[in-house]
């Protein structure tokens, strides 16, 4: 089906009928007609800036905008999103280009009691995503929305059944475009505590689940005989008690030659374990996983950000401070990775020796990721498996390591400080695809201070320093933020790059920002230099090029 404005109009026609009929009904709580939505506009005017390597696009500006509208009435719901990229901001989106204005998403949904049916676009996830995850990160331009049908059914308490079939969103060209494959899947989850009264132990639960997902793509290859249907199954187990949460999931993909694995016919496997323990004031989490040949896309030739059917979560803390978050963030290597992470959160209570008058909080986190230990098959003319491997067999190559400690303390009724130390190892050659670059080791120290000037006015500062002998040398960041609740905030930041191999690397990146918020609406204006970096939301990242100029963002939810 091609998307035209006619599609949008017919949806609006249905909605308008509903809207008109609703006008005659007296308001009756949940059955009222409800209309809500949001919009977001990000515009940027670019200046050329040779010193930082910022090159404006031919238009000198970029503009990303979208608006969502959802209408509900009783069990019925319909929604659509209009999008506009005229042209898109530099570096946006991560994968297939977005251009023009049009309809990006639309659906109709009926959900009553135990049945939930969606026709059109939908997002869905099975388990932790190893088998299937359709999702969006609008600020990154990641969107693999399904377009098809989804049914969710709960036959009895504690039994959850889901099934779908559809195509995936690829890019945007005056309307969303779709990949060439078809994806379908089913998922069953049993919550045993809810299902079997005899097993019911208060506060404990055992959840088991299983998924099967398959994709279809025509084989037009003149040489290779490619499988047109590729299946992936996964099973998961989750035990929960008041203190413990243990999770395991295994996924197995049958042969799926594709551009990311050099068209080998080897099966893919993924296995993950996670354990957490909590008690008052203490939280511990530890996890390991292994991914082998697990790229699963509805087009064999798709790029890394496009048409992903599954989601392979990285095991690395997502940092919030600017330098660690945007310089060397880790991204999963879905075809070849063994990783582990452990973390402890602890709070010394008020009134104890270390807690002092207001309590003290500690967070310690460590993670590491390695390549799988693989052995290339020398004579590979029989199976075309490419290599042999075993899950959790760790290779020599380290992709990433991160050790960090954060101490947070309120020292008086108006002052609070946080001190962070990080040590990072980063294989930029593999993770960011920069061949010939050495492994980067970096140390970072960050001091953050918050001071309450009055009930509504506050001052916050950050001093960050990163030192490394590899890559572009050292970075220092200073940030000061004044906030005047409930409306205004004012931020001034400078990032200074120095100590690199070339003296001309010594560059300042000043940036000023003013934001006004009222309720659920916000307008923000930035002016200055933006360092080239990796911008991440949730688990995914996109590279943002260096830029100099004026940025205006407006967002509202209604």
């Amino acid at each position, binding site marked *: 089906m091609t998307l035209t404005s006619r599609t949008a109009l017919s949806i609006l026609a249905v909605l308008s009928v509903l809207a008109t009929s609703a006008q005659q009904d007296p308001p009756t709580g949940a059955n009222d007609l409800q209309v809500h939505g949001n919009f977001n506009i990000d515009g940027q005017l670019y200046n050329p800036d040779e010193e930082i390597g910022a090159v404006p696009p031919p238009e000198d500006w970029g503009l990303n905008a979208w608006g969502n509208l959802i209408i509900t009435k009783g069990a019925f719901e319909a929604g659509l999103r209009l999008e506009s990229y005229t042209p898109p901001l530099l570096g946006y989106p991560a994968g297939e280009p977005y251009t023009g204005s049009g309809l990006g998403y639309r659906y109709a949904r009926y959900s009553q009691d135990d049945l939930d049916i969606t026709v059109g676009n939908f997002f869905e996830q099975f388990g*932790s*995503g190893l088998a299937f995850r359709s999702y969006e990160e609008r600020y990154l331009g990641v969107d693999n929305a399904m377009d098809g049908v989804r049914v969710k059914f709960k036959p009895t308490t504690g039994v959850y059944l889901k099934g779908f079939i559809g195509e995936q969103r690829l890019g945007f060209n005056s309307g969303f475009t779709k990949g060439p494959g078809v994806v379908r899947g089913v998922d069953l989850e049993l919550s045993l505590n809810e299902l079997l009264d005899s097993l019911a132990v208060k506060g404990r639960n055992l959840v088991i689940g299983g998924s099967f997902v398959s994709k279809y793509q025509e084989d037009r290859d003149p040489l290779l005989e490619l499988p047109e249907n590729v299946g992936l199954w996964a099973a998961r187990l989750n035990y929960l008690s008041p203190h413990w949460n243990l999770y395991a999931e295994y996924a197995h993909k049958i042969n799926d030659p594709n551009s990311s694995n050099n068209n080998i016919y080897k099966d893919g496997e993924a296995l993950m374990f996670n354990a957490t323990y909590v008690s008052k*004031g203490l939280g511990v989490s530890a996890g390991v996983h292994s991914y082998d040949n697990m790229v699963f896309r509805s087009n064999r030739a798709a790029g890394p950000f496009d048409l992903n059917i599954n989601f392979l979560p990285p095991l690395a803390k*997502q940092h919030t401070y600017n330098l660690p978050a945007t310089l060397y963030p880790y991204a999963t290597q879905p075809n070849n990775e063994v990783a582990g992470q452990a973390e402890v959160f602890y709070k010394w209570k008020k009134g104890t020796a270390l807690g002092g008058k207001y309590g003290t909080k500690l967070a310690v986190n460590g993670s590491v990721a390695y390549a799988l230990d693989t052995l290339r098959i020398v004579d590979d003319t029989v199976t075309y498996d490419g290599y042999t491997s075993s899950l959790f067999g760790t290779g020599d190559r380290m992709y990433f390591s991160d050790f960090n400690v954060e101490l947070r303390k309120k020292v008086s009724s108006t002052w609070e400080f946080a001190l962070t130390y990080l040590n990072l190892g980063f294989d930029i050659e593999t993770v960011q695809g920069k061949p010939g670059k050495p492994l980067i080791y970096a140390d970072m120290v960050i001091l953050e201070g918050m001071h309450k000037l009055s009930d509504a006015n*506050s001052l916050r500062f950050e001093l960050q320093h990163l030192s490394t002998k590899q890559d572009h040398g050292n970075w220092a960041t200073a940030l000061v933020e004044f906030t005047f609740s409930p409306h205004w905030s004012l931020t001034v930041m400078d990032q200074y790059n120095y100590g690199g191999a070339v003296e001309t690397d010594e560059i300042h990146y000043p940036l000023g920002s003013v934001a006004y918020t009222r309720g659920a609406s916000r307008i923000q204006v930035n002016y200055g230099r933006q360092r080239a970096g990796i911008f991440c939301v949730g688990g995914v990242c996109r590279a943002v090029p260096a830029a100099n100029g004026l940025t205006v963002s407006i967002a509202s939810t209604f």
Partner: protein
Amino acid sequence: MRTFITTIAAIVTLPLSAQLPSATVTGLDGKKVDAKTFSNDGKPIIINFWATWCAPCKRELNAIAEVYEEWQKTTGVKVIAISIDDTRSTARVAPYVSGQGWEYEVYLDPNGDLKRAMNVQNVPHTVLLDGNGKIVYQHNVYNPGDENELYAKVKKLVGK
């Protein structure tokens, strides 16, 4: 175009009410809950969208945590914290909450189902519901002190 204008006109002239949508979230005990069943015995509810990777979110929830006992005592308000962490960091949510000593009801929304249904774009995002489950106020972003404005609205709802 005419249809479009009719629709917009119809929407604008309607007496609208906004309530919690139907979307499934998972409790830290593994139980699935439909957000439209959130209740607090006729008292107000604050729904706060946050994530372990969002610094201002954590500042906001920590600021409320310091006064939460008093808020509850005076107004009976309940805070429901919805983590939008995806499966990269869902396992960090319970330990983090415990390590902060938060007493909130916490749910996971790892694929953004409730976030999308409530048109939340970025976190932190705070929604205030009256005793009948009607959305009376929403706030985006957190500036220290915003919790005072929120509490003033809660008090107004319960007539204090």
